[in-house]
């Protein structure tokens, strides 16, 4: 009896004393957050994760782009209820169709960046020999891009009221019980510019396909300055990209085929969308813009070009950009379906085998830089402006080139619509320029109760509400809700 008792007790003691290891269990697919970044290689993996998160359905993968064009009146819908039509009808409240995915997803990106920067700072403080410069440059540029998009979604245009509420300006990781409040639009833009300027010298000038480089940073600066109404700043940045970046405008004969290729000569920042990773399949942007049931019964024909856009493009029936447009579901001739994100109107994709939805998202193209340069030069040097505009305008070969005498802001804005259609710009252009937007409600024969047919930036729904989920967890920000929500 005694022997067995002793054995038992000994076994018990042994088991219990071994407990510290026995009770420390980790999964095999995740690492400890505190020690995940030790080298530049580790940091690059985090940058990969960040780029991937930009391809999310809640961001450049789909909704952010649709937001710019559906809200901007360049897109319309054929029927309500197919999905995402609230983007077009503005049928959103803080609690339903709130598009809170923008808020949560973009702040998740901010967290990843802040965490990465803090991890790098901690490794660097330990006298590491690792060179994190290019990583930091990408992280800061990405942070600027995300804040720029956030403040445009949730805050008034900088040119409208820079002292209005922007979004919480967070540059460190937050404790779980943090309840941050909104900064002003101006403070957000200050942060954006600060990050961009700090990042630029750290970045490589080589073309890093799928990632942010020095010229992507500069191109973003051009965009930001244009939105701030800082034309000299915008012109400087855009010209640097045009003149020194090593990018090339597509010739008219190449423009259409450029959509069947990845990382073309105009791509300054292009997000890689690959099968089995970022490919959204039947939820992809390409799917949302193609003709109903084209290639798959699940293609519901969500969005098509509005008559306003088509009329604009019809100024020249020979405009090369008709090449990515095709008949939509309507019976009369109506080339409303857009195939920029399907490769071509025959769904060839952009070079990934057997797949026409894994198509890269071209976030910044060189043609936009020409249009920014044109717009930024217009008040001071119309001749220069005309020169930049014509480089793009010639894609409609039958239109007369602009001259210093004939060029107008309208021409540039129209050209932006034609060239950057379905790339997420139109709405934000209308906001910053304080123009009105008219919606092609006749196409579906609807009269949305949630917005009038014509709106401008005085309409409260042009900025999104802070989602109720945020307000539940952070009541003080509820006091800073956007007006009328």
């Amino acid at each position, binding site marked *: 009896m005694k022997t067995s008792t002793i054995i038992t007790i000994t076994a018990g003691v042994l088991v219990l004393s071994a407990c510290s290891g026995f009770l420390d269990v980790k999964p095999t697919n995740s*690492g400890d957050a505190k020690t995940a970044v030790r080298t530049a290689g580790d940091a690059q993996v985090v940058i990969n994760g960040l780029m991937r998160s930009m391809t999310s359905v809640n961001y450049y993968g789909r909704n952010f782009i649709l937001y710019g064009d559906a809200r901007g009146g360049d897109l319309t819908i054929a029927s309500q*209820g197919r999905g995402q039509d609230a983007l077009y009808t503005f049928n959103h409240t803080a609690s339903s169709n709130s598009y809170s995915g923008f808020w*949560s997803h973009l702040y998740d990106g901010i967290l990843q960046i802040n965490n990465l920067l803090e991890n790098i700072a901690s490794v660097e403080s330990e006298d590491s020999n690792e060179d994190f410069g290019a990583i930091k440059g990408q992280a800061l540029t990405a942070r600027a891009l995300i804040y720029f998009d956030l403040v445009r979604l949730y805050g008034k245009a900088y040119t409208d009221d820079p002292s209005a509420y922007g979004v919480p300006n967070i540059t460190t990781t937050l404790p*779980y*019980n943090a309840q941050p409040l909104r900064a002003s639009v101006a403070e957000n833009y200050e942060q954006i510019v600060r990050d961009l300027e700090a990042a630029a010298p750290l970045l490589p000038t080589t073309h890093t396909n799928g990632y942010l480089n020095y010229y992507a940073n500069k191109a973003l600066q051009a965009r930001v300055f244009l939105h701030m109404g800082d034309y000299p700043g915008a012109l400087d940045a855009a010209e640097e990209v045009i003149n020194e970046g090593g990018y090339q405008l597509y010739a008219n004969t190449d423009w259409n085929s450029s959509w069947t290729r990845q990382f073309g000569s105009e791509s300054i920042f292009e997000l890689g969308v690959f099968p*089995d*990773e970022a490919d959204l399949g039947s939820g992809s942007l390409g799917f949302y813009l193609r003709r109903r049931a084209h290639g798959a019964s*699940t293609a519901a024909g969500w969005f098509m070009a509005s008559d306003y856009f088509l009329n604009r493009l019809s100024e020249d029936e020979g405009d090369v950009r008709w090449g990515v447009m095709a008949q939509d579901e309507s019976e009369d001739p109506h080339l409303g379906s857009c195939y920029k994100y399907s490769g071509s109107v025959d769904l060839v994709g952009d070079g990934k085998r057997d797949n026409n939805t894994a198509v890269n998202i071209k976030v910044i193209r060189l043609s936009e830089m020409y249009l920014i340069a044109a717009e930024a030069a217009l008040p001071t040097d119309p001749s220069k402006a005309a020169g930049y505009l014509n480089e793009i305008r010639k894609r409609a070969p039958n239109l007369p080139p602009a001259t210093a005498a004939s060029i107008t802001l309208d021409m540039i804005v129209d050209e932006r619509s034609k060239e950057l259609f379905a790339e997420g710009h139109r709405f934000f252009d209308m906001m910053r320029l304080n123009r009105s937007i008219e919606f092609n409600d006749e196409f579906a024969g609807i009269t949305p109760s949630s917005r009038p047919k014509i709106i401008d930036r005085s309409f409260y729904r042009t900025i999104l509400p802070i989602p109720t989920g945020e307000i539940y967890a952070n009541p003080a920000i509820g006091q800073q809700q956007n007006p009328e929500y």
Partner: protein
Amino acid sequence: MWLGALPTAWAQESTVTGKVTDAASGTALSGVTVSVSGSDTRVATDNNGNYQITAASGASLSFHAVGYAEQQVIVRGTVIDVALAATNQALDEVLVVAYGTTTRGSFTGAATSVSAADIQDAASVSFETALTGKMPGVQITNSSGQAGAAPSIRIRGIGSMNASNEPLYVIDGVPATAGGSGQLGDYIYTSNNVLNTLNPADIESVTVLKDAAAASLYGSRAANGVVLITTKRGKIGKPTINLRSAVGFTPAWATDNYEAAGVQEQVDMLYQVFHDYRTSNGWTEADANADALNRLNGKFNQHGYYFETGGTGLYETVHIKGMTDGLVNREGSYYDWEDLLFRTGMYQTHDLSVSGGTENTKYYSSLSYTQDQNRVVINGFDRVSGRVNLSQKVWDKVELTTNVSVARNKQHGYNDTRNLGLNYYLQTRNLLWPLYWPDDYKTGEPFTGRYGSYAYNADYYENEWDNSANSLRLGINETLSVQLLPSLNLKTVFSYENNEVKEFLYYSANHFNGTTDNGLVHEMSTAYTKLVSSTTATFAKNFGLHGINLLAGFEAEKNETDFQRSSGSNLPASSLPSVSTAGKLDASGYSWGYNMLSVLSRAEYSYDQRYNLSASYRRDGSSRFGPNDRWGDFWSVGAAWNIRQEAFMENTSWLNSLRLRASYGVNGTQPISNYGWRSLVGYSSRYMESGGASLTTLGNEDLTWETSYATNIGLEFSLMNSRLYGTVEYFNRDSKNLLQSVPISLVTGFGSILRNVGEVNNRGFEVMLGYHILQSDDWQWSASINGSFTRSEVTRLYAAEGESEAQPIVWYDPTGGDSRAQFIYQEGESMLSFYGFEWAGVNREDGRNVWYVNNQDDDQAGDFLYNGRGATYDYSNANPTILGSAIPTVFGGLNTDISYKGLVLGLNFMYKIGGSLYDGAFKDVGDDGYYWERIRAQYYYDHRWTDTNPNGSLPKLLGTDPTDAMQHSSRQMYDASFLRLKNINLAYAIPAGLTQRIGLANARIYFNGTNLLTFSRYKIADPEVNQYGTRGWETPFAKTYTFGIEFNF
């Protein structure tokens, strides 16, 4: 009276005589069956309780009477007197408890048990379902009628928010894995419960431990109660072969479930939507009429119908005409989708077991096959299971017990979700117009396109997708028991459990979920292993009137799950849906787990069988917590007083037993999340074919145990010769440091964090009363009723650091992933408080929805006054508020058994009174205008407001979509009370004379009916709802008629 015994083959036979009495009253018992175990010899006692039987010395005599515990006595000598104890209140009844057994008379805790006989006939693949309504304080709910769906068990309310509220399951002394298994849930909503691998026919008894004294020895997992399952063991005697077969049919659902309106009503309603839409945009009636007909034609011409109206008004009857340009003219004929997608389900089960034993060896072995075909055509479940339970005395003092079980479950055709394309039940109620046909009326070819946005030709798609889950579960449980001293026993248990789930999901290139990938197939394997080692020493000894029982031991547990997935797309042919044929491959694999270490001890003291005291202590360490809070202490104390045994009660002959118990203790709940305390970086965000990382979990290193403080007071009694018996229990459970995933500011980059957030109180009464109404030679009639009155309330919410006051927590019913109901945790309110907009009803003037504004500061604030309160037509102007609670006032069961000679009729009712149910599905079929393509329920058609039905309780059908149907509001709430005849069982034991002639020990035939009757005020669908009190698009429950036969050789 003496019934002649048949000659037996046993040697050294002698005549044994004796008297059988009632243990409590001492009165003689007549009609008691006395039989020699393992032989055919049986007699019955006469009116004076006397019997005479021929038996060999050393044989085992068995005494059996209805209402009494069976007793076995080894024949030694020729006179054997026996006192039988009435069951239910039988103080000597052996009760399986934590780490051992005890007798009911000395137990200080609260426990309920049922035996094999109570659960064996129910037509159910899961044993839990058969417990419904039989155990006070135990609420068993089903969310789905899908084949293989497993119920959820709540013992004494809801003590946890985020952590599990399921009890701990212990099978043959070893904590078992329970709950959902497999990973298919990441793709479609499934229910694949490990416990379904357990064959109900193998179960000897199920004991539910409810209070701290009973359960605290299981420490950190005991707060929600413990379900102890004991499997069958062999009995001394010659081999018994048991053969049981049952076949059941499910020709109908148990209740109506959102029955769709007729085709005429549907067409008229859609016409009205289009018409109203146009007139409210300023069109004339004539134009609106033309447009509405045009839209109807546009939608249905291709299916062979066109439409006409007599006039141009809103309420025209639309004439449905057949197109004449096709192969057929469909006028007057419509397609019956229900006929295609539902069938008469079939249930069958076949069990074979052999058991027996000697003094040294006891064995039980079984083989079983069960098949459950659901009424939904693609859904089915089957199981093959086998078990060997063997115990062998190695030496005089050493016993080795080996339990080996193997089970293979196969489930296929999951479709239990609000997913519009895949759920056939939803399709028939909400999407498939009778005007749609599986074939094209012009060509006769299958119709392959979609009918509307979401309706699909299920006839065609049926072959284009598939899913299944095969589980193989192996359990090996070795117990070595050494009687070191007469009073000291050492027991060591080692158990290994392996459950491997292989899952398969396939969509062909023709299927709407597979087109973009040109066919898609996933094959997954999830292997769960669990190792448990526990060693306990028990010292039990009586010193005169004093008895002590001491237990000490330790336990270690290791849980590991390995997951692998391979996926293929670009499939060459639909005939070979397999990853190996795919053009493109993708794979993933990883593992996770958790470990536990524990020491445990218990002390019991009894005096003169009158006083019992007990105390327990357990210390648990778990890998689910950070190093700061890894260990927790759990304990209990309990006492019982057997009042009837006191001298002063000696003359109260009407009272047969009276016992008072009380206990207090502390036990815990573990978080569901294995790694909630750690911040983790995940590597699933690949980018351009390189690895990508992101912070996926925000850890909380200060996470600590949920702790429950439970008090229990119980009174057990029986009187009138034990004909009337009952139990009353009061309990109070305060649960503190509750874990909850709390929404946090999204600006942090995360939506929520696991935190200890608050406190909950559950308290109430449980009452069980039984009465043997008739006890004559031929007639036996007994009935019992039980009820549980439980209040579950959030008592406190902790303010987070830096907050001045705690935030209420809004959460959603997780069932089905469709956020069908919104709840709130708020101090002083029910644990299941529905939260949303308060619907005031329909304005009688114009049929529009009216919402109460519920402005906290001013009840009159709003766009107008309605019933004296501020109201609005626009829900977005209203404030959400608490709308009611899903927790019933009382729930329980009503059970009665009537037997006449060999015929036994058992009725098992379940009931629930009070509380609300939230219908998360009716919004789809009772929609007032948002959905243009869907069909609606007859209930909506009948109850909607129209010009001619101004008292309609549901809003007017509009084309302008003023109300988003997805809002959480009291419009979808109903009284949850119901009474259901859960089971009716009619069994006939074939007379012994007849069976013996054909060599059978006994034989029985039976009929079992499930869900045959339901009474409820909620008529739209089935009132038996899930544990959150909500209903969605899960497969409804069916009526099952089962016929069975059982033989014993």
